[in-house]
């Protein structure tokens, strides 16, 4: 199926008669990408489900004021990223836990989840990712799984391309070390 252009979605959304159609097109194009982006950050399916709905409700409410000098998908990704970070921060505050403890909690959620069917190596990669600081994990996910360009990640996170590259390299090194400690070599 041919993907509709963002410009067409925005054009249709601007017209009240075709607004609903435009939003349907937007959902068809982005809901899965945004769901997976959120899911990789919060791990639990139910949490991701709540957050992805919140994201698109925000998109619906604010799309009219969206300035077309930014790209639509980076704008949606930015909303999703902010929602994830807010959610994880709230989780830390609610449980009065440190980042390490949250990582342990997410790792336990991953192992116990009925919606994770990865093999041993996939599980280890996820566990390795959970040892990273949130921002490194975010950057790694966007580069590795979403295959976004550094320029796009830069627009989403507001971080310079140079800093993103450094972050990604550090993340890769840490994952490599984690895997070696688990006797997994590539």
């Amino acid at each position, binding site marked *: 199926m041919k993907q509709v252009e963002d410009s067409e979605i925005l054009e249709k959304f601007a017209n009240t008669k075709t607004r609903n159609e435009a939003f349907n097109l937007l*959902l068809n194009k982005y809901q*899965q990408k945004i*769901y*997976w982006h959120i899911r990789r950050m919060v791990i639990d399916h139910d949490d991701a489900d709540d957050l*992805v*709905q919140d994201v698109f409700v925000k998109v619906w409410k604010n799309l009219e004021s969206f300035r077309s000098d930014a790209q639509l998908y980076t704008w949606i990704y930015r909303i999703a990223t902010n929602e994830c970070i807010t959610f994880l921060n709230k989780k830390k505050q609610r449980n009065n836990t440190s980042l390490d403890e949250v990582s342990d909690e997410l790792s336990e959620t991953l192992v116990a989840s009925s919606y994770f069917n990865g093999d041993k190596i996939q599980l280890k990669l996820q566990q390795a990712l959970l040892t990273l600081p949130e921002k490194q994990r975010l950057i790694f996910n966007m580069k590795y799984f979403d295959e976004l360009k550094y320029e796009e990640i830069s627009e989403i996170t507001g971080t310079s391309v140079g800093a993103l590259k450094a972050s990604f390299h550090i993340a890769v090194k840490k994952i*490599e070390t984690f895997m070696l400690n688990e006797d997994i070599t590539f």
Partner: protein
Amino acid sequence: MKQDFENDEWMKGVRETGFTTPAHYFDELSESINARISAEKFKAVIQNDGHTVPDNYFEKLQANILAKTIAEPVAKPKVVRLWNSSLLKYATAACFLLVTGLGLYFNQRNPVQQTASTDLATDQMLYDIDEQVIIDHISSADIIQPKSTAADTDLENYILTNYSQSELATSL
């Protein structure tokens, strides 16, 4: 010797093409390449993250989002025209009557209240004084009967000389 000279000239030409690199680019390049190679190695073994979703999840997700956005009825604020409402007339009349009534009621009630409160204060003051103190005060007080300026016999004589027997009989 000639070859070195030609090589230098060629290098000079390359240097003068106007291209530049970011600061410390070549220091970081090897690290970037190594990280990319490692990431590519991961990718060759781990293509996806292993997360799954329930069956038909994305169809349900879309329906849920649409229910919260497009299908959500926009609650229009109800406009009540205050000045054109007959309710306002009745409310104004009721307020006027209430204010007037309360004004009259309190005006009439005030003097009564004041007298009542003065009596109450006096009673309270007497009540506060010890009973024995009042008794002692009365018994020790030098109660002086007003002295009559004229003697009883003088009065008798005055009456008998100025009034007849019949006048006295009718008066008594």
